[in-house]
């Protein structure tokens, strides 16, 4: 079990990505402990989502390494990384809008089970999937909407379904891409407490612009600008840092 002996949940070494002449990730190195809560900040176009896409496998870096629990996953496709315990949400809502909330979350559960290849039994045969999907919807406060199609529900609720799909997988590393974007104050508070209640063994890496809310959830902060890591470390140290004020807070 080499996976368990690693000190790092996620390790990124000298990652580089360029689209033609435009370099969007330069020499990025990061380490995330199991259970760590890390906030990634930076101005628009700093390369935050591009970094996420490389971690999840949607984009292949030009050079560098990505390790999950000590295992080099750089050449792995996204679905293989998911099976190693990586889950993510999207900045732009990516749900199955004609299907019910329960079906959406069930797909999240099915993705990691061998029964996803089952070709003669319907999904409804697997009662445990349905039970678990409903339990997850309950934790995000959407159980009452379980049988409604996603297209029927409000934007803030869709954000929570995004989160429920990822949480259902019980990930060891969870990437959250702007989970608070476009939410009202009440919804923000709901999602914030939801993220706060994620099990302690799950490492959470979050991109978020709403500093007031996000800083409360983070132990450590990474500041990106022009694809580079500018400051990286303990939350308070990063916030107090001169360069953070310069780049991000614009002071």
């Amino acid at each position: 079990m080499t996976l368990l002996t690693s000190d790092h949940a996620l390790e990124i070494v000298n990652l580089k990505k360029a689209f033609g002449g435009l370099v969007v990730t330069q020499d990025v190195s990061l380490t995330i402990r199991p259970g760590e809560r890390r906030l990634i900040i930076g101005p628009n176009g700093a390369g935050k989502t591009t970094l996420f896409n490389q971690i999840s496998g949607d984009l292949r870096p030009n050079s560098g390494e990505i390790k999950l629990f000590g295992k080099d996953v750089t050449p792995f496709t996204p679905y293989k990384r998911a099976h190693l315990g990586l889950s993510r949400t999207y900045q732009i809502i990516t749900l199955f809008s004609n299907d019910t909330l329960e079906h959406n979350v069930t797909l999240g559960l099915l993705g990691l089970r061998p029964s996803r290849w089952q070709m003669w039994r319907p999904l409804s045969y697997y009662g445990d999937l349905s039970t678990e999907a409903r339990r997850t919807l309950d934790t995000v406060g959407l159980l009452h909407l379980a049988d409604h199609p996603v297209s029927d529900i409000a934007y803030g609720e869709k954000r929570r379904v995004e989160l429920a799909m990822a949480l259902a997988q019980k990930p060891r590393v969870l990437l959250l891409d702007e989970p608070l974007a476009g939410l009202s104050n009440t919804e923000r508070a709901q999602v914030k407490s939801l993220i706060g209640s994620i099990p302690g063994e799950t490492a959470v890496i979050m991109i978020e612009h709403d500093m007031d809310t996000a800083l409360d959830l983070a132990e450590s902060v990474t500041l990106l600008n022009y694809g580079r890591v500018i400051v990286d470390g303990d939350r308070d140290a990063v916030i107090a840092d001169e360069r953070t004020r310069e780049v991000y807070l614009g002071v």
Partner: protein
Amino acid sequence: MRWTGIALVAASFLVPPFFAGDFYVNLASQILIAAIFALSLNLLVGFGGMTSLGHASYLGVAAYISALLTTRYGFGHGPAAVISLAGTTALAAFFGVIALRATGLGFLMITLALSQVLWGLAYRVSNVTNGDNGIAGLTRPMPFGISIDSAVSFYWFALIVATFAFVMMTIFVSSAFGSTLKGVRDQSRRMAALGFNPWMIRWITFIYAGFWGGVSGLLYVYYNKYIHPTSLSTTSSAEALLGVIAGGSGTLGGPAVGAALVLLLKNYVSAYLERWNMLLGLVFLFIVLVMPTGIVPGFSRLMAGLRGGSR
């Protein structure tokens, strides 16, 4: 209400052979064959989001393999059918590897190109396929020693195969795997992030669709007792695609209805109207404008609306 519908559909298949003339029974057999073909294409187009313009490859290749094995190499119908289906399925697996390098328009173009290669081969390699003359003088099999040479007996044979095909394809798309197929159609990137292998899901579906395309090809060659390169042509693929879209892609029965419509226009109306292609075009235009999701979803919405209005 639901059972009345099922009873009506069953009756419309079971009753006609007892009083209809051979012409109409044969027409019904052809509709069944076209329906299996359209249903298999619907697995790709409707449930997988893979619009193929080369599905005739599997119908044609299955038909040619069976025709060649029984006439030229002295095989019995049983072994010929098994080899033909195995060969067609293997071909689908091979073509799938090539075509699934792309999605969308790229996929469509590759499937079109591959089917054109086969069509060209059927025309040009005339020492094997007999080229433009086609292969004539074929016989029908005798399943369990029962002759299916008459119009009515062939209809029953085709009906049994078509029912089995419909059930098998319905089970496939209703299964857990079928749910993942629809997921890959709608949000392939998200499905990959959730741990599904989109490529493998598409490939397996491509092979399964190829197999049922092959089944329809066997029935096709049994029915016609003749095979010609046009069975491999783009027109043949496009007619099936037209049926799928007209009937309602991604629905269980829609493609069968669409296939029936195309076939009726082609075989029945053409007897009275020389420019039946024009009528086909107009009918298709009407469907696209009035029921953009197809006949079956369009009618069920209409029925639901009427029922809601009369209340």
